[in-house]
């Protein structure tokens, strides 16, 4: 799966303005680590509601920038909720972290490039 859907990202730049999108990407890069941490702490606390909400937020922002892979993984967590086996969530969250790393790098390059 493509890390960032170029068409979505370009459309965003066109409608909101490239400078604004650069700022928006920076905001996302500031906020996302907190959302990922929130997801993990919700998992640790077995707080299903907070877990779903954190996954929902990540999905929502990832979709805005066209970060397809990140959005799809976050969506799976939002819909699946807390797994019966915590190890599966930990695994899924590691995949989410990795996808975020790729999306962040790509977004940085695209918005500042």
């Amino acid at each position, binding site marked *: 799966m493509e890390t960032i859907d170029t068409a*979505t990202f370009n459309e965003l730049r066109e*409608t*909101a*303005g490239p400078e*604004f999108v650069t*700022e*928006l990407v920076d*905001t*996302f890069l500031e*906020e996302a680590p907190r959302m990922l941490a929130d997801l993990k702490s919700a998992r640790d606390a077995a707080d299903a509601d907070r877990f779903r*909400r954190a996954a*929902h*937020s990540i*999905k*929502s*922002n990832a*979709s*805005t920038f066209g970060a397809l892979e990140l959005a799809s993984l976050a*969506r799976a967590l*939002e*819909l699946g909720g807390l797994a019966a086996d915590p190890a599966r969530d930990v695994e899924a969250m590691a995949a989410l972290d990795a996808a975020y790393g790729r999306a962040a790098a790509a977004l940085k390059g695209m918005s500042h490039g």
Partner: protein
Amino acid sequence: MADSARLLVADDNKVNRLLMARSLELQGHRVTLAENGRAALDLLKREAFDLLLLDIEMPEMDGFQVLEQLKADLHLRDLPVIVTSSLESVANIVRCIELGAEDYLHKPVNPVLLKARLAASLEKKRLRDQQKEWMRRFATREVAQDLQQSGFALGGKRVHGAVMFTDIRGFTTLAETQPPEETIELLNTYYTLMFDAISTNGGVVTLMAGDGLMAIFGAPLPMEDPCAGAVRTALEMIETIELFNLERVAAEKPPIKIGIGIASGEMVAGYAGTNERATYTCIGDTVNLASRLESHTKAAERTILIDGVTRAALGDRVALEPLGPVAIRGKAVPVEVFSVSLGQKF
């Protein structure tokens, strides 16, 4: 571009909030941001907004709770709400609509779609506001509120209250001796002054016919001491007319005189007419008696006449002159009539 609207955006996610604000500002609107449902409600109670763009998944108070609270709030329930969310189930979207949301936009929100839906919602709101404004102009605040709360239904309910009729003496002669424009102006001034006295004392104007007015005290909303409200209104009206006459005489115009009749008791209040055109009114013996008392002011050469029920409710609070039993058209037995002495306050 459409007129600039005052919009409130409620979203807990900073990226979503900033992007939504940007889209709306590019469309020429003024935007205020709230980080959760509770903050949004606080802002809505303090400031006036044209529309709310509401996220559903929020901490503190989520979008569903905000919709519920708005629905329960008389002042806020007409505020249009567009839900912007990436909710995963249709059931949730249905729930938003059922809770009164005007529209639903899936995130990420397409700016073109946003613009179109926003324009439609704002236009609907403009029409609703206009309707409300018209209702305020043609009905009174109490009737408008009653309509808003209970909806419209023909038919009445029994209420206990006081009815007042007023009339300008010799109005036809007056109207014949002056240009029609002047008569309209006189009526407008007269109505403004009388409406003010009536509403200050808790009454509702239910009928305007030429120079005649009918007002009810105690319906559609019950009030304490409706008889006192009606008599106070009458005294205030006379006082106001006297001041108005000083101006008229100074402008070399003839002074006007009015007659007032008040009766109290049970009556049926409600909307009468057809579903297309109806008026809020009261009917019953009490209403007829008030109208007859108003007519009788001429023969009795008194200004304010009240019936025995109104008199009993007032007790010793008001100076009166008993006129004894008077034969009233439509009444088998003569009724006790009292004249209220002018120039008193109670």
